[in-house]
């Protein structure tokens, strides 16, 4: 392992990013506490080493609750992505349908969970279903929009080729529009995946027993003495976001490897 090897490694930038962030963070924390002497400095930017200490102490709890949240997020994500995909397909069928359904889609996004929860409970009268639905509801919008863009951006001649085969509409989707929309879909999914974690956390606030959201809320409202623990939950949330994002990136490489950005010889830098 020589220096050159390390520097050119795929993971080197990641290491630098993480390490750099930690250093900047720790410094800001110190700066705020001792130079600016801001009030509640540790609540504003807590010391990394304190957080690390918290992790060593309560790592297991954080891990267990984080795992619960992640699996809830996965369910919500699947539902949201499916819903978003379906909606995009529906809207791509005709401008007319788009114009009819879109205002509803936007308007629906304006209903906060607080207003939505009673309705969903009112209809389904089942907590589990309600939670999954709410988690899906939070993720579907970015997926729908990105997917729609992808579906609409197909080379017109490629569509004509399909017409010339007298392809049934669903065939055009299956053989052409879907593959062509994959890059768009994946950027939508990359936005939606961390959102699904948010969704899962929000849903946990609706009276769940487990999950990082529960921990987050309680630490927040059990007073500032739990500042480090609260921040730890925030970091676990963000970390789950990173994991979900990387997972989607990995799947993208497997499912849509033909994109210019992935071509070995296509690079310019």
């Amino acid at each position, binding site marked *: 392992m020589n220096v050159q090897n390390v520097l050119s490694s795929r993971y080197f*930038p990641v290491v*630098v*990013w*993480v390490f750099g*962030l930690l250093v900047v963070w720790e410094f800001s924390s110190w700066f705020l506490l001792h130079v600016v002497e801001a009030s*509640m400095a540790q*609540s*504003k930017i807590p010391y990394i080493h304190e957080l690390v200490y918290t992790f060593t102490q309560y790592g297991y709890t954080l891990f267990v609750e984080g795992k619960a949240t992640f699996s809830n997020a996965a369910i919500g994500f699947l539902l949201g992505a499916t819903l978003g995909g379906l909606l995009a397909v529906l809207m791509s069928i005709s401008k007319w349908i788009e114009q009819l359904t879109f*205002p509803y889609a*936007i*308007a629906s*996004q*304006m*209903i*906060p969970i*607080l*207003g939505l929860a*009673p*309705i969903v*409970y*009112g*209809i389904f009268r089942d907590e589990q279903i309600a939670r999954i639905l709410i988690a899906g509801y939070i993720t579907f*919008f*970015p997926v729908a*929009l*990105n997917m729609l*863009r992808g579906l*609409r*951006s*197909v080379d*017109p001649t490629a569509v004509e080729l399909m017409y010339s085969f007298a392809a049934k509409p669903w065939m055009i989707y299956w053989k052409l529009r879907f593959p062509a929309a994959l*890059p*768009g879909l994946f*950027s939508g999914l*990359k*936005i939606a*995946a*961390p959102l699904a*974690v*948010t969704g899962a*956390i*929000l849903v946990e606030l609706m009276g769940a027993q487990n999950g990082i*959201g529960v921990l*987050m*809320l309680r630490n*927040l409202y059990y007073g500032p003495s739990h500042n480090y623990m*609260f921040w730890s*939950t*925030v970091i676990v*949330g*963000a970390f789950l*976001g*990173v994991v979900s*994002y*990387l997972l989607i990136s990995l799947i993208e490489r497997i499912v849509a490897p033909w*994109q*210019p*950005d992935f071509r070995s010889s*296509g690079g310019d*830098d």
Partner: protein
Amino acid sequence: MVLLWEWQMFHLIFNLETYQLPIPSTILEAMTENRTLLLSYAGYTMTEAVLGMLIGSTLGFVFAILAAAWPRWGKGGLVLIASLNAVPIVAMAPIMNLWFGAGMGSRIAIVTIMTMAAMAINAYKGMRMVDPLALDLMHSYAAKKHEVFRYLRVSNSLPFVFTALKINTTASMIGAIVGEFFFSSRGLGYLLSNSIKVAKMPLGWSCIIVAAIAGVIFYLIVERLEKVFLKWHTSNRS
């Protein structure tokens, strides 16, 4: 009209009670009764949303440029920005409140964070998904990195950028409204959460309706802009 009818049907089909979803006439009543308040609060919330979205989208776009220029480094940064989306507003609100106070600033900050990722991810994709031959053309002109962006990548990313802007219209409204739940003393979100907690469902739903209308208008404006800027794009050809 269709909407009103659907609303009533919705009630019937799902057997909802008015305290779960009030019927339109009572909402309308609450809206007219409180219209000045609603309008001024809508203005307040929209200001937060629009400012936050502009700042967040700009930052996201700038970040996308940096990331697309140095993808080896940029990809890692993108992940970090995206991960901010996994921090819910409940957690963000108290932090932002500490940083920026209980005024508009903290909501603008929340919206900024919420809108950054969508723009960064989408614009990055748009800047990287260029036709390799178009890139060759630029190279043949010995275009500097910034020229490749100016003449090729930025234009190429516009369809993606507008998709992000559309996502961000709703994200920014949600961010502003939900952000107001926690610390604000004004705004649609404040009124909404207060109303629902004291069972003033019609007033709460008035807020939702006003927010929805504002959100749709906001969206339509962005869509209009897209039509102007993307005349050339496949999706706009006759």
